[in-house]
């Protein structure tokens, strides 16, 4: 009986903490706007964390940024305007997905290149061993 009680209490923990987060952060009343804000949270990095988006971060600055983005959405700014402004202030590293540009070609295309090199090496190796036989 007691075990069941503990289990229930432990299982309720996530809901308690989720409730606390919602209480601190006022979501936008307009559901469509709130969804848009959430989509933006996922595209923006938490600048004081490593590899976390705003949507996942509990850092103080992330709270401020979520509130800031919500305000901008409520003011009627477009997604692109909001992201562009953040890039001006923080640099492109604030975006979760780096842009495809000449200086990020290595980042985007090196995996393809490495696979290609690998395939060429495999073909060469196979040919080499067949010749040997």
């Amino acid at each position: 009986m007691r075990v069941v009680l503990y289990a229930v209490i432990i299982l309720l923990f996530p809901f308690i903490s989720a409730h606390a987060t919602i209480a601190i952060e006022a979501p936008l009343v307009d559901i469509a706007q709130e969804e848009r804000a959430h989509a933006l949270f996922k595209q923006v990095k938490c600048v004081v964390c490593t590899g976390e988006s705003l949507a996942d971060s509990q850092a103080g600055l992330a709270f401020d940024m979520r509130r800031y983005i919500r305000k901008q959405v409520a003011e009627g700014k477009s997604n692109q305007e909001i992201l562009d402004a953040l890039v001006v202030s923080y640099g492109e590293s604030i975006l979760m997905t780096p842009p495809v540009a000449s200086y990020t070609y290595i980042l985007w295309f090196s995996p393809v290149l490495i696979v290609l090199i690998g395939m060429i090496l495999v073909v060469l190796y196979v040919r080499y061993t067949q010749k040997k036989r």
Partner: protein
Amino acid sequence: MIRRLLICITMLLCIVFSGVFAYHLLHKETGTIAAHITIPLVIFSAPDLYTDDMVTYDDLRGKHYKLVNVFGSWCVSCLAEHALLMKLANQYKIDIIGINWRDSPQKAKAWLEKHGNPYTKIAQDPEGDIVIKLGVKGAPETFLVNSLGELLYKWQGPLTEAIIEEELLPAMSMP
């Protein structure tokens, strides 16, 4: 023959990668935390801590270079650099615009009364709106602003004697 070629290619790739990594490791900026940036004039308007005036981006523009300093009474490192800001204001007569981040006016005023006020104007930024526009990651952070109100340099973390003498003052004397 081909096996040798493969070994050569692998070795070559290893050497190239090691070289690239070594270069970037050795050329990492150490000692200073200055970053050359160019953030165009940031549009903002916020109530002043002491008067009924609004502090706006117009206050960043002027004849001379100015500093913008992000601080809060809750920020321990801000206290560490505070004496240096006082020196910059009193001795060098540099205009410092304060951005009071995530603070209450009462706490901020009490803090400034206790430690001195180096700021010519202080914009209240309880929700971090200005701070985010400036691209701030944490307090304290100090910006060098040119006459057009553009942010040219930023120093993350508390200022030090060395940063002021070796970087900040030389940067301010440039045309």
